[in-house]
């Protein structure tokens, strides 16, 4: 056990330190050892304290900052309704980013598309119902409603949360959408940066997992 710990310690030491450690335990030279003529000093590739062994840290961006996600899950009509609903639930305004600034509809197309089928059904059924009711009431799809029309349409189905999911599929969808559109907006880079620059903001308005920083566990080795 001790032997293994020793090797683990040695591996953990920077190379420079390990070499210095070896120097420290060398026996003192004796008078009989001839003194060699000093060679010219070798070229220096790094500092003596090992800082020359540091690896470079390159600044990068996430894919959302440099490209556009390819949509694949929702139908065009469903996606248009989701976009309109997202803007209604988390509108842009003031200095904070809204759902469209944070590209929440694009994110949800990916996220819901990767979710179990029962979760997908909540979204697709809900969005289809929004379009159906909108067409019946206003003779146009949900995406084309103005704010007051859209608000009036969803009002009967917006309820406070309870453990038991609403039996009404539109109410169930709106419960999920209200939570996820808000979370996906507040956890976005756009929202966090805007919130952090608000007057009086202390390191971001969001909490630990809402626009903030958290202690992330890497996959265990």
């Amino acid at each position, binding site marked *: *056990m*001790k032997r293994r710990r020793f090797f683990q310690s040695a591996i953990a030491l920077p190379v420079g330190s390990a070499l210095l450690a070896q120097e420290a335990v060398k026996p003192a030279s004796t008078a009989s050892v001839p003194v060699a003529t000093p060679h010219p000093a070798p070229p220096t590739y790094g500092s003596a304290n090992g800082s020359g062994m540091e690896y470079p840290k390159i600044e990068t961006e*996430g894919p959302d900052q440099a490209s556009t996600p390819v949509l694949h899950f929702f139908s065009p009509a469903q996606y248009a309704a989701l976009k309109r609903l997202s803007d*209604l*639930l*988390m*509108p842009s*305004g003031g200095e904070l980013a809204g759902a469209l600034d944070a590209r929440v509809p694009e*994110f949800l197309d990916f*996220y819901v598309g*990767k*979710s*179990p089928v029962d*979760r997908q059904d909540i979204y697709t059924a809900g969005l289809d119902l929004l379009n159906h009711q909108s067409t019946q009431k206003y003779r146009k799809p949900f995406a084309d409603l103005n704010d007051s029309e859209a608000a009036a349409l969803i009002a009967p189905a*917006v*309820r*406070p*949360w*309870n*453990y*038991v999911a609403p039996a009404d599929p539109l109410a169930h969808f709106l*419960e999920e959408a*209200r*939570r*996820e559109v*808000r*979370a*996906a907006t507040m*956890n*976005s*880079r756009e929202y*966090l940066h805007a919130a952090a620059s608000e007057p009086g903001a202390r390191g971001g308005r*969001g909490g*630990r*997992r*809402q*626009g*903030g*920083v*958290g*202690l*992330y*566990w*890497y*996959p*265990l*080795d």
Partner: protein
Amino acid sequence: MPTQQDYDVLIIGSGASGGMAAYTLTKKGIKCLMLDAGPNVDFQRERALKPVYDLPYRGLGDPGRLPHVIQANEFNANQWVDEKQVPYTHDSKEPYNWVRVRMLGGKSNFWARMSFRLSDFEFKAKDHDGFGENWPISYADLKPYYDQVEPIFRVAGRKEGWAQLPDGIFLEDDSPDSECVKRFNASATKLNVPVTKMRRATGKGPLASSLNLLLPDALETGNLTIVPDSVAREISVDKNTGLANGVHFVERHSKREMFAKARCVVLGASCLESTRLLLNSGLGGASGALGHYLHDQFYITQGVMASMPEARDGKGKRGMIGGGGYIPRFTNLIKGKPDRDFLRGYAMDFSTGGTPDAKYFPQYGAELEKTLASYRGTAISATIMGEALARYENHVTINKNVSDAFGIPVLNFQVKYTDNEFKMALDAKNTLEEICHGAGFDVLHASDKMYPPGYSIHEVGTCRMGDDPKKSVLNKWNQTWDVKNLFVVDGSSFVTSGPQNPTMTILSLSMRASEYLAEQLRTKAI
């Protein structure tokens, strides 16, 4: 370092129970080998601060990855056992949330630290109300061990002198209550509902774990060898003596088959992993009780969500709101005079000063944000923790058709709550609402809908102890009736759970059993 022939005791598991076994045995000069299924985690290397937007799913979590672990989020998902690697099965209509951790220190690295003693309302529950069985020990038997365990874990609390929640060796908590907590307490008192300070292990540094409070001392003796990444598959028995002589295990990374030998085997792998190991080994089953009587505490984490109106709109001045408390069981305490339409009782803890979640308000957009700003820092929330009765029909078996990534057959669960739990939950919700209304708080939400069984991570009972070998798996020393050098020291030995969090009892039972085992080894009775 001892060779593999030299170990007196082989301990499976390094959490609260396994850690305490190692702590107790090694101090008595007994050579122990400890196997744990998980890695020796380097907390500096395995964790890092990250902004939520850098996570693949913006903090919403990988969809469908940990369907049974409600506690998981995208930050901590990797700390839990991967359900695809180590699956289990259950009827789709009767879910069970088996929440597991596999790493050195086990769940003791993450527990909520709530630290309570059981009382004779639990140990002698059958004498009190006629249901189930008594434990083969009483509170007086375990008290000396609680007295030793609490100082190790540095439990803070306030002494009350209550029979149903015995006082301990506490770091006295005499911190002042906020105005909000005083109002909650006064309202509860009018309803004859007792309230005390939370009793909590303060630990040392960032942890109150086996990892920092037990294992270092055990290692210091020179009598403990720990081998992580060792997934126990089967306990081996000498055909001639009928005694356990070691454990077959699988090295986690390479899947290499290994065998570790010892004079005695102690299981502290957690209630259900120890049970699974016994079932897969064909041991401990003579009574028919093995795997049965699985129970826990049902949990309702938002039994009530209320708001203190005087603190709204930023008016919550210093000392007005913050802190919390704990309500112990207060129902059915007088023998022969039940005061409810259910058996036993529940506990509740509450906290004040947070902000109610957006989900409680039927609003969105700017209107919602305005409401949340008004309610910021005004919340009173409470969790209900009710005793689930130990019933024979709630059980686990081995599902021979499904194996985990290590080729080990998995558990199948058949567990459900019944009317006693549902009635208890309703009573708890009503009590919380009444307390909040009496205190002048606005109740935003109240619920009696509990999570599926298992959520509390307080599963116990599947290797219950008893005085009768025909009705129990273990005797009063946590020793299996069937194999006298095989002990089970985790929560599986419980006969009843009460509403109290079980960790202090698990630690105390493990210490008691380990002292007994040490004496048996010293006198060569084993």
